[in-house]
């Protein structure tokens, strides 16, 4: 990897938002491939950040500043990228299920998945089944639907949502991921989701594996 791209990666990992923009510019000036700057300098760097988070080496704030630094870098890079290369991993719809109003966990997941190179469509909280299906129909190239529920009382709502998706005619085109405090792998299996992850960083890894 070019030392200039390595520099970008280091700054993203450290969350140096102010320095990332100029570093990206420097890499571009040296003739580095913009896609390589994005993949090698940012997406891979965020994967390392996520890994460290999973291992308890760093915590949420470090992850937040790294994601913010990446965002600054992408702003500089975007005009140089061909259309679609920022969300090259594919489209992903994320929502907190109907009846549940919590968005913090879901937001962190969205952030990490976006940092992994997905184009994220965030439908927000208390999202009814119909709205998710409608969104998919408007974006038929969606690869993953990601659902969050924070309390045991909204687990049935998650079950209903997944059941509705499982009955849809587009089920074979998508993967379903679930998560949230009361959710377990067993529950995910039971309701027929394709994957479960217990934190935001693992969710990003899982999303990548599901579209492989």
């Amino acid at each position: 990897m070019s030392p200039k791209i390595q520099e970008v990666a280091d700054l993203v990992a450290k969350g140096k938002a102010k320095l990332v923009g100029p570093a990206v510019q420097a890499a571009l000036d040296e003739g580095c491939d913009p896609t390589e700057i994005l993949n090698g300098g940012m997406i891979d760097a965020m994967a390392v950040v996520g890994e460290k988070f999973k291992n308890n080496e760093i915590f949420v704030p470090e992850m937040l500043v790294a994601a913010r630094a990446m965002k600054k870098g992408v702003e500089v890079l975007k005009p140089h990228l061909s259309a679609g290369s920022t969300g090259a991993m594919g489209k992903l719809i994320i929502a907190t299920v109907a009846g549940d109003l919590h968005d913090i966990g879901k937001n962190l997941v969205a952030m990490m998945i976006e940092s992994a190179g997905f184009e994220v469509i965030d439908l927000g909280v208390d999202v009814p089944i119909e709205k998710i299906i409608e969104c998919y129909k408007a974006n038929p190239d969606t690869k993953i639907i990601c659902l969050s529920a924070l309390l045991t009382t909204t687990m049935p709502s998650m079950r209903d949502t997944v059941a509705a998706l499982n009955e849809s005619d587009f089920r074979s085109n998508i993967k379903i991921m679930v998560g949230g405090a009361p959710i377990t792998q067993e529950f995910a299996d039971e309701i027929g989701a394709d994957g479960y992850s217990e934190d935001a960083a693992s969710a990003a890894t899982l999303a990548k594996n599901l579209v492989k």
Partner: protein
Amino acid sequence: MEQKIKITKFQKKIARETVFQLLNCKEDSPTYQQMKEEFEELLEPVKEKLAPEAVIGFGKVPEELVCDKLKLGEDVIYVLATVGKEVSRFSSEFFDEGDFLKGMLIDAMADACLFAMDDEIEDELKRVCAQRHIGIVSRLEAPEDIPMAAQKAAFDQLEGEKNLGISISPSYMYDPVKTSCQVMRVSEDATVFKAQHNCRKCKAKGCTMRNIQPITITVQNKDKTFQIVSKEYETILDAMNKQGAYFSAVCGGKGNCGKCKVRLLSGELEITPADKKHFTQEELDKGYRLACRAYPTDDITISMTTQDESGFSIQVGHGTQEEEDSRITESGYDIAIDIGTTTLAFQLVGKTSKKPVASFATLNRQRAFGADVISRIQASCDGKKAELQKSIQEDLMTGIRALIQEKEIEPSQIDRIAIGGNTTMGHLLMGFSCEGLGVYPFTPVDIGLIERPFQEVLGNTYLDATVILLPGISTYVGGDIVSGLYDCDFGTNEKTALLVDLGTNGEMAIGNCQRIITTSTAAGPAFEGGNISWGMGSVQGAICNVKIEDGKANVTTIGDKPPVGLCGTGVIETMAELIDHEYVDETGRLEDEYFEEGFELAKTAEGKKITFTQQDVREIQLAKSAVRAGIEVLLRRFGVTYDQVDAVYLAGGFGYHINQEKSMVIGLIPHEFDGKIKAVGNSSLGGALRYLTEENAKEEIHRILERSAEIDLSQDADFNDLYMEHMFFE
């Protein structure tokens, strides 16, 4: 509802510490400064958006709320508190823009404000309780304590929409989310006020805000009763250990060994899967539980049923007589210490006489974290490093104080302290990380000779002495063995000798003044009574001698007390007798008659059968062949035959008491060594003593280290074959 009180005068407190705690933002994090700046920037705008309000009201428990915690019609106080909708909108704006950092910060700030409202609500609750002469016995929250339907009940009873402008979803969630609800159970006892938030029952153990209200555990131990306060969500075992109430847990609190059983006298303790494994239904009904698995959630009273360890026999001396010549006036004193995994031994040494003048022994209370070094290493790596260090420091202080008091000398008269101990014991005392000790390639932090001021090692200034930790050879061949080698003259003796420590780690060495080869073998704790169904330490009532005649065992116990179990020497004697009388065949299989239930040795005072089982035989086979194969490999690598070995030293408390003949019967030691075996007792302590009294000690220890090589049995081509071969009984 009889009366509702609305509280609007809140201070909008947003403590930065709380917010950072919520986000897990630590002061040593490189992002701390940036987070701090962002926080300061957001503080005023967030305060503007906050609209803290609360309602409290008296009511009775409606039908839909009845559960094991709440009775129908019971008097309760409902509490609803919110910080309003605006602040949630404010954070959402940032999330929508993709500024996750600000979004998360605002969200946490809203939480912090909501939590802080608790104090002001508490004041109001105290006021209304005083007015009515009532108290609060518990605070219940959904979903941890009571069903989520409680949120709906509180909302209806307090008219949440009208009073606070909030709404509730069909799944009983409030909008805005930054709203909290509690149900307080009231009582006529006006002196109780337990309205504080209690995380004890919450399953979110990783939560950064975890705050647990203390509970009291009353412990009855024989005629003594004492109380300990548990401030965390923890097992009875952990709570007791933390507060110095010693408790032996051979397996390290994994629910395997069953040695930490207690009996619940009042209060509640859930029956765990480990309890079901260890106790019969009758015993469970009587309240028997394992302390290492029991998480109390409220005040309880238990009785301890642990063995009496007061009579634990510990090997202090190493054969030499401890005689004091009163005509000698000592110019000062040193202290020699052996830190064993199970026991600690101390000797006070006169500087003029160069002789031990007082001794003391005690159990290593670190046993509460597990019987063997591996479980201690695990405990240390699981965040109990500081507790383990404190435990050994306290034990050492106990011994040091006892010696000083016994001889009625001044602490200032103590000059040096020399310590022999295995590598793990050294690491735990020094507060070194044990991360490297438990995993390949087993790298220690420092096993060189350590000389430090007393305060640095023991953490106090009771003595102004130098503490010396004797050096080791590797993670597995530690300072205790080097000390033992020194004690057995491996540095000077021209004839070849073998030293075997029959402890858990089975350290051994062969050599002379030219060269030394050391190794360690996974003997396990079987020789010390560990992993044996009825095994135990050398305590009062432990069976130590066994004779079998006509299919019946005649036993003697330590202190001639009623039998309670089997100590290490008893284990070997039983095994040897079973072989002699052919109750086991050469493969180690017990006769059909005893195969299922084991061979009965004696009955306890309560009439329970003390047996030696098939599994116990297997444990002995594994242990003895590990030691024997280790001895054989050492001889081969050193290039000598049995007859070229001049002396065989058996070290350790167990080695001292072992019946040599029986150890040969079971094949632990080759018959060819008959007549050459010397029990040297605690040679680690002996070496430490000699270190303090001999002039060239440092150089000689250095010489031993220089000439020592270690072999790794797991990599040795012959070891496995020998291990299989010696598994059998000849």
